């Protein structure tokens, strides 16, 4: 049985390799997408959390993916927030996504940012920005882009001089003066978010409820730091739908590739199936033989896909060290289950067709 199994797998090496690659490709597609989204969200959430802010205050209906929001809140809300009982510090910011560098940029006021983050912004080389077109970058950004102090980077089509390197893990990888970012985004005296530090941990819930229910803050989006990751993943517009579509495409690719492979296989092996039937092989025997072959192709495809995904991740990390790709075990498990399901299901019709072949017709097949 094993001999025939491997002989059949090896019979058409090109077809076998193409099938394996097709399954692997769908695995890579899902794992990389999930890894990238999870990585970006998790990293973003973690760095936001590391700012040590207790609450985040945003315009009504805002996304927790901060970079998706425009700066629409008046800067002066800061004073109203500071007047709320239990709030100690407020740091206004603009979060901006830089398409060119595929990175997040924070427009900050260094003083209030350091107040909220308990001096979490640690400059390890250089200094904080003092002038409008100066910026600071984190050490990962510096390493991945091989830059040094005094170099210039382009942010929103404007050149900024790098004056400081800060320890990574907090906020964004690039930080510029809030005022400059307001000017560049035509958001004078506007901000996209306020980071809030409460007097103590016990005040967080009280302040949160107050902001949620008391005018003029009522209607604004308020998020606890503790909820940030969960809310980020659930509030990313279309993420869930896109994931479902992507997984469906992946399952359909695997299904059809295996279906086509096994269908052509059994068509070529009609005579062989006739011989097996003449030897007394049952329908179950023939079905299980075809399904085992499909399972092997799917399994090898899965292994190749998972292995290739990790190699691609390694390669991406080499060329983009700042890129966070978080491939979760959960998704590996999901893709294994789905690929096996689609592989077996794809082989089922050819297997039934093979088992139902008339033995005499099969034996006379040329």
């Amino acid at each position, binding site marked *: 049985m094993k001999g025939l199994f491997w002989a059949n797998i090896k019979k058409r090496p090109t077809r076998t390799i193409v099938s394996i690659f097709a399954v692997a490709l769908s695995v890579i597609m899902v794992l990389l997408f999930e890894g990238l989204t999870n990585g970006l969200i998790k990293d973003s959430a973690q760095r936001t959390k590391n700012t040590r802010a207790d609450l985040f205050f945003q315009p009504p209906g805002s996304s927790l993916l901060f970079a998706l929001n425009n700066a629409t809140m008046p800067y002066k809300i800061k004073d109203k927030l500071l007047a709320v009982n239990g709030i100690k510090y407020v740091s206004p910011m603009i979060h901006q996504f830089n398409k060119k560098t595929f990175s997040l940029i924070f427009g900050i006021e260094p003083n209030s940012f350091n107040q909220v983050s308990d001096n979490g912004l640690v400059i390890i080389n250089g200094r904080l920005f003092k002038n409008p077109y100066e910026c600071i970058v984190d050490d990962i950004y510096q390493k991945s882009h091989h830059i040094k102090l005094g170099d210039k980077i382009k942010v929103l089509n404007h050149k900024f001089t790098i004056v400081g390197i800060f320890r990574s893990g907090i906020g964004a990888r690039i930080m510029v003066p809030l005022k400059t970012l307001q000017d560049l985004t035509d958001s004078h005296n506007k901000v996209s978010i306020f980071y809030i530090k409460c007097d103590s941990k016990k005040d967080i819930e009280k302040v949160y409820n107050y902001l949620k229910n008391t005018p003029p803050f009522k209607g604004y989006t308020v998020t606890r730091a503790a909820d940030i990751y969960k809310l980020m993943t659930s509030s990313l517009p279309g993420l869930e739908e896109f994931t479902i579509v992507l997984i469906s495409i992946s399952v359909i690719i695997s299904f059809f590739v295996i279906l086509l492979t096994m269908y052509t296989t059994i068509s070529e092996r009609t005579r062989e199936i006739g011989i097996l039937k003449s030897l*007394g*092989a*049952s329908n179950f025997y023939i079905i299980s033989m075809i399904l085992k072959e499909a399972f092997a192709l799917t399994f090898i495809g899965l292994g190749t896909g998972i292995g290739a995904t990790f190699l691609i991740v390694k390669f991406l990390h080499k060329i983009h060290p700042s890129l966070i790709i978080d491939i979760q075990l959960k998704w590996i498990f999901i893709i294994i289950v789905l690929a096996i399901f689609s592989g077996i299901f794809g082989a089922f019709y050819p297997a039934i067709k093979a088992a139902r072949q008339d033995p005499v017709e099969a034996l006379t097949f040329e």
Partner: protein
Amino acid sequence: MDINSRELSVGNIVVVKNVTKIYKVGKVDTPALRGINLKVKKGEFLAIMGPSGCGKTTLLHLVGGLLTPTSGKIYVDGYDITRLKDRDRTNLRREKIGFIFQRYNLFPGISVRQNLELAKHIKKDEDGEGFLEDVINMLGLREKLEHKPLEISGGEQLRVAIARAVIGKPSIILADEPTGSLDSHSSQIVLEMLRNLNLKYNQTIVMITHNSDAAAYAHRIVKMKDGQIEDKDKGAIYSFEHQSLFTF
């Protein structure tokens, strides 16, 4: 077990009663067998001869349970195979019947040994190792076990097909023109082997052949013409004196 009729009680392993087979090709009915009656005794070596298209292979496929007759009854080792479900006919093929095809029908991608092991696996023949080894030696296949079928000669391929057919010690071996594509010397060797199997293991063999020299190895020759058995009263031809115990 279906019946235990009088025919079976006198040692007939195959009984074919009034069997007809009509192939439908579109709206056209093509009769292949027209009321065949045939009995084969246990341990008999029977040759069926006849011109091409006379229905020999159809008869063999019917006895082997690969086809079902249009009418009539076929008993194989006590089973009325015309009443068996597909699954039961498969079981019957597995347990009671061994096929030898003219084109040998070996699996070309695997070795001789793997071909034999595959048959052993399908036939669930767990305790036939000694018997198989014996057959391998008897058929002179020991040196060829690791070769693939296309790496050995036609005569050797046929010997592998014979070895595969006897795995599981089936009640009956059905051979469809086994020596059809061999030269006379190779044919002779293979036919000697079939006769030895028949003698040593009391193996019932039904062999289709065009060749009267090959048929001469059988205990009895049945001639067919136009889907019928020709002149059945003259069907008893005994090639070997010591096996003349068969009477029909």
